[in-house]
């Protein structure tokens, strides 16, 4: 649908056809042909004292078109081209395949416009970025490859926003998780503002906006940066991230721009230029989080115990690696036989290949399939909570559908664990209850005793 329905110029100028080299226009009934260059189009419009130009049922304000997005309007630049080039360059210092790719294409001009070559870059990006973000990026690539349609534009902007939100979530959740653990060991006092921001995270009834997510990140970063707190960043790359979180930083601007796009989407007032804008802003955001290519994610499915006479006990960790290549087969689960115990039903974020020094993102990120003893991963991110009934709302990353988790009250003071675990259904309910219980524990630990006690609900 058109974003601007009134042409403000005196002339009615309609683009009829665009080829690689020319643009054919109808200027008040007269057919004109110009070179496929923005400068020539602008000159023509200026000459005719027109402000807008119509193309394929859309009316574009010439002031909103620049060299970067002109190719998008004319179809010369495809979806994902900008993002692919920007991201492969942003991660090259952290990712050997990206570095090798850029070496290979250094002599090829506009390689990103050659589908076969840019597909290779897309593959590297999707496989390199941390688990769930890599999967989301592959979906963005898939949307970009679909035939042009109204639905495609909407889906493309939506997916850019989802990826941005989940990336910020991932960073925030890792900071919150580490902070929760640290508070359990040694409670620290937070300022009123900090407490308000934390409470907002735990108690907000709707999905936070990108702006709010950015503010939470800034608050958490400040908490970790305060020397008196003596906290260690869960992701070492965040240590020098303070500048990126300043009020006028690129990241802050990106979050605001994406928020604005979200509002346009809600009002159904988007157009092709917004697709390019979303792509550009997402590229900027992920470039800031380029270090995420060093990270991996895993879902701990099951931990078994083994101890034989005169030998130290060992644990058998069965886990699923999260990424494009993760499989849903029982025999595709990975195994680690180790003397170290681990958290069951945990979604882990870790640097490199070894998850021993990992961040347990649960209950902010859960694998619903692990909780219900199913193979494969169904990764859900915490979205909001309902103070009224104490339920938690999660978003399933694959289709963005909502999963509501409520306390089932399976575990009672007189419950016999042996009897409870004889029933798979009851055990599943117990796992679900544990998610809510952990969330409330984290909330109480971080907000202090004066916070509203959700257990009383």
């Amino acid at each position, binding site marked *: 649908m058109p974003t601007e329905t009134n042409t403000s110029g005196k002339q009615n100028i309609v683009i009829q056809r665009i080829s690689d080299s020319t643009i054919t226009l109808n200027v008040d009934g007269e057919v004109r042909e110009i070179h496929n260059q923005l400068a020539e189009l602008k000159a023509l419009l200026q000459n005719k004292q027109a402000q807008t130009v119509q193309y394929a049922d859309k009316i574009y304000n010439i002031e909103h078109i620049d060299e970067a997005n002109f190719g998008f309007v004319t179809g010369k630049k495809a979806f994902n081209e900008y993002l692919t080039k920007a991201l492969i360059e942003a991660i090259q210092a952290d*990712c*050997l*395949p990206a570095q*090798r*790719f850029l070496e*290979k*294409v250094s*002599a*090829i*001009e*506009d*390689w990103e*416009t*050659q589908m*076969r*070559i840019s*597909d*290779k870059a*897309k*593959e*590297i990006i*999707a*496989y390199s970025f941390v688990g769930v973000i890599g999967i989301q990026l*592959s*979906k963005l*690539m*898939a*949307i970009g*490859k*679909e035939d042009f349609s109204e*639905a495609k534009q909407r*889906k493309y902007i939506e*997916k850019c926003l989802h990826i941005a939100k989940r990336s910020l979530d991932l960073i925030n959740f890792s900071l919150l998780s580490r902070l929760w653990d640290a508070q359990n060991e040694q409670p620290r006092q937070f300022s009123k503002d900090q407490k308000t921001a934390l409470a907002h995270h735990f108690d907000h009834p709707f999905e936070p906006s990108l702006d709010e997510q950015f503010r939470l990140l800034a608050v958490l970063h400040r908490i970790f940066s305060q020397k008196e707190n003596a906290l260690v960043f869960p992701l070492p790359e965040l240590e020098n991230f303070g500048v990126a979180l300043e009020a006028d930083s690129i990241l802050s601007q990106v979050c605001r721009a994406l928020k604005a796009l979200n509002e346009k989407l809600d009002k159904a007032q988007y157009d092709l230029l917004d697709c390019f804008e979303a792509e550009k802003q997402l590229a900027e955001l992920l470039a800031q989080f380029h270090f995420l290519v060093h990270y991996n994610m895993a879902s701990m499915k099951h931990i078994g115990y083994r101890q034989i006479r005169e030998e130290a006990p060992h644990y058998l960790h069965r886990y699923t690696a999260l990424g*494009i*290549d993760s*499989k*849903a*087969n*029982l*025999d*595709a689960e990975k195994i680690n036989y180790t003397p170290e115990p681990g958290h069951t039903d945990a979604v882990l974020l870790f640097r490199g290949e070894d998850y021993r020094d990992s961040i347990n993102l649960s209950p902010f990120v859960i694998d619903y*399939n692990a909780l219900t003893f*199913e*193979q*494969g*991963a*169904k990764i859900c991110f915490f979205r909001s909570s309902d103070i009224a009934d104490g339920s938690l709302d999660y978003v399933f990353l*694959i*289709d963005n559908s909502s999963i509501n988790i409520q306390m089932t009250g399976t575990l009672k003071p007189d419950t016999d664990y042996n009897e409870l675990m004889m029933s798979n259904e009851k055990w599943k309910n117990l796992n679900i209850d544990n998610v809510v219980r952990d969330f409330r524990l984290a909330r109480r630990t971080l907000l202090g005793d004066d916070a509203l006690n959700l257990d009383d609900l």
Partner: protein
Amino acid sequence: MQKRYPFKFLDAYTREDSDIFFGREEEVNALYEMAFQTDLLLVFGASGTGKTSLIQCGLASKFQSHDWLALNIRRGSNLNASFEKALREAGGGDPQSDRVTPSQIEGVTSSHPLNSLDWLDEDWSSESPTTTVSQNLSPLARSLKAIYLRHFKPLYLIFDQFEELYILGNKAEQETFIATVKEILRVEQPVKIILSIREEYLGHLYEFEREVPQLLRKKLRVEPMHLDKVKTVITRVGALPDGNIRLQAAKEDAIATGIFDKIKGKEKTLAIELPYLQVFLDKLYLQTTGDDSRQADAMFTVAELEKMGDIGDVLRDFLDEQVLKTAQKLQQKPETIWRILSPFVTLEGTKEPLSEQEQCLRLSDTSPALVRSALESFSNSRILRFTEQEQRYEIAHDSLAKQVHAKRSDEEIAILEVQRLVKSQVALKAETREYFTEKQMLFIEPYLPKLSLNEAEKRHLNESDNAAKRRKRNRARRSQFTYTAILAAFVIMVGLSWWAIQNQQDTQNAIERIKLNQKINTANELRDYGDRYLALPKKEEARKTYQAALDTLGEHKDLELYQEIKHKIESIK
């Protein structure tokens, strides 16, 4: 705006029909959940329960378009070949032949230092300094990777009517397919397999499950249409904003129940088959509107439903009617038209897709022109469906196939059995193929003139015949030889017996001789002792000793020694 006719007749619902696909929400949700819990999903149910629609419409429309790249694969003439073809068509051609050449890339000329673009096919996922070139991947893995990179969408490989692999396929084809599935489950790309099979063929999956234990771990049984589901379908179809069907106000429930009861008839069942429902609804529409173009608005009322009367078997009636119409149109007897339909149905009463050429081969005594006309007529009446991709015709639904099968005569069934027997043998590799036995040839021979055989089949039958004749000759020869051998053996046996008896006699004689000699020796010794007693002279002792010598010799009175000793006794007296 033209209103929409909401019934699909015998066609399966597809993603585009999601707005008219009702009553399956529960099963669709279950299937959707399972898609995240396994990479291998089994959908099973009786014929006519709507398995294909559930997957191709229900499940497909649950996924967003960027999350669903489906390849629908039917067996065709060979499941493995059809699968490879589907992969090629989806962009999974061998990357060797699909490789980028410098001329295809702008800015890279033949003299360009980077004119070799082999690196595009390299796998850099390990970040190892030594790259693993994707040529090391199997052709299948390479193909799946190529498709994924072309679309970046999870790939769903849907093997519909999977029972065809067991009805029409042979062991080698089945084994190859199982190996393929095992390989697919190992590839790095997001690829899922959905197998849709009629439940009576589940038992055939024993070998498959042994090789792929997760085969039956996630499975969904598609239930037939119960009354509540039929009600949902009818009422929601009647409420479609852009549909051309309306239901009599406040009678929606009665109409839905009436339709269900009419289709069910006197059968003691709680469910009906979908094709019956679809054909019935179409018939009700035509009765109400008389509009073959199916564009007119229709109001389904209780009265209109009552007019349908006792409809009996709606599908059988529909088929009879269409065959009769085709026969009249082509000026043929109905039996001839039934015969043209028959090869499209297996001996088990399931569908068998055939190309026009294959059909003509099977009906060698029918003119190709007539076959073609009949095929066209059946396509128009929606009894047969033509698939562009496979260039094959097939019966629109297994429920119809069952009806065609029921029309077959005993002779026709026998011919089909013979045909299958011949084809199954010829389909085997030469080294494992066996000639038909004489018993089998006796069964085959009466139907030979009515069989349409290809060269390989004719050759195999000839060879089998020759082999049978050879076997007969050999057997006759063997019989003659056996008789001679038995006679010779008898003679030899007699000879041997005689020889043995003789031999035994000689032995006995020898023993007797030895015994006699021993007696003579003893008698000689006793005579010598007697002689010594006589010389002493002790006559009485001499006589007793001589007598003992005579007793030793016993009855051998003819011996010279006997006489001598006898004389000596007499001389003592």
